[in-house]
């Protein structure tokens, strides 16, 4: 990580990585979604609505992974004072918020034909909504701190404290057995049949690459903006 502490070195890697991540992400996401819509059989219980799985699960994963990234960047900033950590945290937040929002919306759309309701104050749904609001708070706090010329320490502490919500989201289906189904995909296996499951890794990896593309593009934008601000300050001095 410290090898990337130099912004010039980081940019030498980030420029080609942005294009590659975009291409691989688009290819995998499109193939995965097309396969999920056309090649897999309908579920015996849910019917065709099971196809929402291929976009809902990646968005849920990325909503949570985004905050895990913010927490890791916060630790890196507070403990090691990594110069790109605050930039990384601010860059990841809009992508994480977007995918948390997509997760909530697609889940709500999936819930209507499956559960008969658009929304329920269930443990999983509520904790995911809290995550979405945490993202909005982080974005507002981090940008306000940046505008005032701060180092982003308050946003980093907020990012670390907000990580408490991640295990709550993960275990919510075990702690509060309400409407959302229990864990169907774990590290050791899945309760979903392989004939339905196989396009999911494609969309998971594809959307993760697109998430990485958006985060890298935001980091490049922030570094360029910082460069412009520094040069303007030197010119006016």
């Amino acid at each position, binding site marked *: 990580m410290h090898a990337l502490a130099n912004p010039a070195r980081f940019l030498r890697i980030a420029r080609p990585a942005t294009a590659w991540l975009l291409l691989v992400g688009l290819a995998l996401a499109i193939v995965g979604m097309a396969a999920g819509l056309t090649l897999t059989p309908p579920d015996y219980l849910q019917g*065709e609505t099971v196809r929402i799985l291929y976009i809902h699960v990646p968005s849920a994963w990325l909503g949570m992974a985004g905050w895990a990234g913010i927490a890791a960047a916060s630790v890196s900033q507070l403990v090691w004072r990594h110069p790109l950590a605050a930039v990384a945290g601010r860059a990841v937040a809009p992508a994480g918020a977007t995918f948390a929002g997509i997760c909530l919306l697609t889940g709500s759309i999936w819930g209507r034909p499956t559960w008969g309701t658009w929304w329920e104050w269930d443990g999983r749904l509520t904790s995911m909504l809290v995550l979405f609001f945490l993202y909005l708070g982080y974005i507002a706090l981090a940008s306000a701190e940046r505008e005032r010329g701060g180092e982003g320490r308050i946003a980093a502490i907020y990012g670390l404290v907000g990580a408490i919500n991640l295990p709550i989201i993960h275990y919510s289906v075990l702690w509060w057995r309400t409407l959302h189904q229990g864990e169907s995909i774990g590290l050791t296996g899945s309760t979903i049949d392989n004939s339905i499951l196989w396009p999911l890794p494609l969309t998971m990896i594809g959307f993760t690459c697109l998430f990485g593309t958006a985060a890298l593009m935001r980091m490049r*934008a922030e570094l*360029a903006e910082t*460069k*412009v601000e520094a040069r303007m300050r030197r010119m006016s001095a």
Partner: protein
Amino acid sequence: MNPWPFVVAAYAVALAGTGGLLIWAFVSMRRAEAAADALKRR
């Protein structure tokens, strides 16, 4: 209940959200890098 309008709506939300995020990130990056390059040339 016909399930397809729900499936189509969910995919539309995911595509619009992801596409919008990528376009916004790309435009902001291009604008910032163009401004930095222009300032370097001055």
